[in-house]
């Protein structure tokens, strides 16, 4: 394996980690506020469909992005309605939203485009253009650093840089702003927050708004990357992001490394469809299942104890 191959694998790791990172941060906000969000998968799918559909019709992925975010937000608010306002079971609500997205995207997609649930493929302005950072062409000729800068750091689409910028931003919001302090408090001890005269309901809804926007970005990114929406294209990424969140112990910087690890794994799986070990060839199905297997291993806690926000999953009932 030569240097350039390694750079290429790392480059596609970043590309594949981007939607996971955005989704993971979405889950971070929502779970830090005490709302468990199994519905990340559904939001991702809804956003991918709406952005793909609107970008195909308008020819602009930026308009698609707006639609994707709107769709993801709508799902987020439904989750809020069920789990915050009506104090329903957050797991059940999330699961229902995932099914709703899986069904609606195909039913509506078929009705709009008659392509068996796909959207027309995107091209030109219908997809995000890669951003070439300054001097990437000039520096590309320098050995070792040049290709790394040109391939790995430069040349991603806008949303990848947005996702990377969202990590320090999330850290700042959570740990350095008053809003973040309250958000974390509401996930640990909503009673105390309520006693301080701050609305638990409002804070949790705001967390879900942030989660909805981030999932909207992630879904749009998926649609742009695959040049259109395909049925069930989220392929469990919402759940993998949740596992990464647990791996990251609900912290933004750890979320970055956890999702990069999953991205790397997927990149290796894509590049080496079958690895031969002497006479035995590792089957392609195993490589495909690898991210899911890793998820289980991580959840098994072989990576240290992860303590979730204490009030996660419980609806807040005000004392009377």
């Amino acid at each position, binding site marked *: 394996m030569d240097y350039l191959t390694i750079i290429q694998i790392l480059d596609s790791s970043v590309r594949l980690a981007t939607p996971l990172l955005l989704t993971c941060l979405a889950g971070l906000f929502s779970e830090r506020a005490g709302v468990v969000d199994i519905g990340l998968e559904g939001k991702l799918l809804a956003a991918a469909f709406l952005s793909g559909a609107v970008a195909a019709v308008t020819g602009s992925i930026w308009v698609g992005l707006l639609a994707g975010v709107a769709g993801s937000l709508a799902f987020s608010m439904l989750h809020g309605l069920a*789990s915050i306002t009506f104090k329903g079971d957050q797991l059940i609500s999330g699961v229902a939203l995932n099914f709703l997205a899986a*069904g609606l995207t195909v*039913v509506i997609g078929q009705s709009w485009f008659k392509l068996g649930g796909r959207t027309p493929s995107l091209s030109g302005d219908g997809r995000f253009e890669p951003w070439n950072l300054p001097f990437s062409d000039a520096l590309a000729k320098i050995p070792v650093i040049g290709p790394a800068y040109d391939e790995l750091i430069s040349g991603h689409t806008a949303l990848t840089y947005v996702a990377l910028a969202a990590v320090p931003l999330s850290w700042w919001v959570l740990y350095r702003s008053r809003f973040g302090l309250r958000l974390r408090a509401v996930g640990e001890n909503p009673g105390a927050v309520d006693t301080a005269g701050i609305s638990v309901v409002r804070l949790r809804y705001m967390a879900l708004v942030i989660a909805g926007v981030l999932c909207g970005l992630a879904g749009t990114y998926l649609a742009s990357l695959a040049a259109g929406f395909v049925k069930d294209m989220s392929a469990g990424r919402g759940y993998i992001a949740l596992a990464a969140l647990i791996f990251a112990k609900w912290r933004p910087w750890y979320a970055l490394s956890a999702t990069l690890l999953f991205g790397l794994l997927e990149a290796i799986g894509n590049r080496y469809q079958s690895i031969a070990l002497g006479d035995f060839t590792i089957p392609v199905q195993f490589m495909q299942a690898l991210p899911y297997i890793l998820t289980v291993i991580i959840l098994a806690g072989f990576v240290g104890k992860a303590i979730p926000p204490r009030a996660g999953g419980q609806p807040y009932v005000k004392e009377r």
Partner: protein
Amino acid sequence: MNKMPKWADAVLIPLISILLAFFFSGLVIWAIGKDPVVAIKTMVQGAFGSTSGISYTLYYATNFIFTGLAVAVAYHARLFNIGGEGQAMLGGLGVTLVCLAIPWPHWTLALPAAMIGGALFGAGWAFIPAWLQAKRGSHIVITTIMFNYIGAALLGYLLTKVLKVKGSMLTESARFPEGAHLPNFSEIFAPIGINFSPNAPANMAFFVALLCTFAFWILIWKTRLGYEIRAYGQSETAAKYAGIAPARIVIIAMLISGALAGLMAINNVMGEAERLIDNAVEGAGFIGIAVALMGRNHPIGILLASILFGFLYQGGAELSFWESIPRELVVVIQALVIMFTGALDNMVRMPLEKLFVALNRKKEA
């Protein structure tokens, strides 16, 4: 304080929730430019209009009884098993291995053996998530979902590399021997003068499902183990004080759950396809969640909900054939049913409670 009569809690609330779910499903049909009334007529005609339709409806219902009971057993222990899909897939593998192992002389011998195979494999696939939940505290919802994906990959590998018949283009196992053929409704009911369409799939497994429904009731409400499962589900701390080992209950409840999901394979793999095909489960594992929630985790509720979903599934197939509405419409309905009966329960319950309190006051005054 009893705010509501028992019948309102058990019947009225689920009924209103389901009507709400159906109303919104109708809205979806209307929104994609189809006529909901025509759609319902097509579905009813397709599901109940012929013996073939009824047979398909009951065939699907059989699948959902198994997966619904599977979800319900786990739910009584407050475990959310979303892995019914993968467990049913592996159950199919178990049934296939048993059916292909020897040239079975008669189905009365093959069926019990296949049931053991399906249940063992289904339970086995549930064991790892169960163990991880009990011993390591891993989130069972995510691990069971991951095991669905892993199971699909595993079966994909086995079907293309191991079970596939040499020289055949199809990714499916060999056909089961004649002796492993389960009698279908046409063969069962012909001697008593009821004629079912000979090619329709409902079979002996339906009666096994009914037996399982009864056994479920005995297990949950009439045995010590069932009591322990329910006690653990109500309160883990109380169960601990009563000397119930949490890890044991988690693992046993999940093993029973996985076994029930795996048993589904005697219907779809042994009874219908008579060979193992790719994606044989067709989402029945997930529908089990909707069925269990709608049936309030009670055997009678699950039986009725299964038949309703059997109707939706068969009706949905007709709908895609005649009205070109994709079959995924059933997934939408399923999602709405889960949403309204599961998560938005309080939306219906709160106003009803107020209503009953007001009515009671009036009576007392």
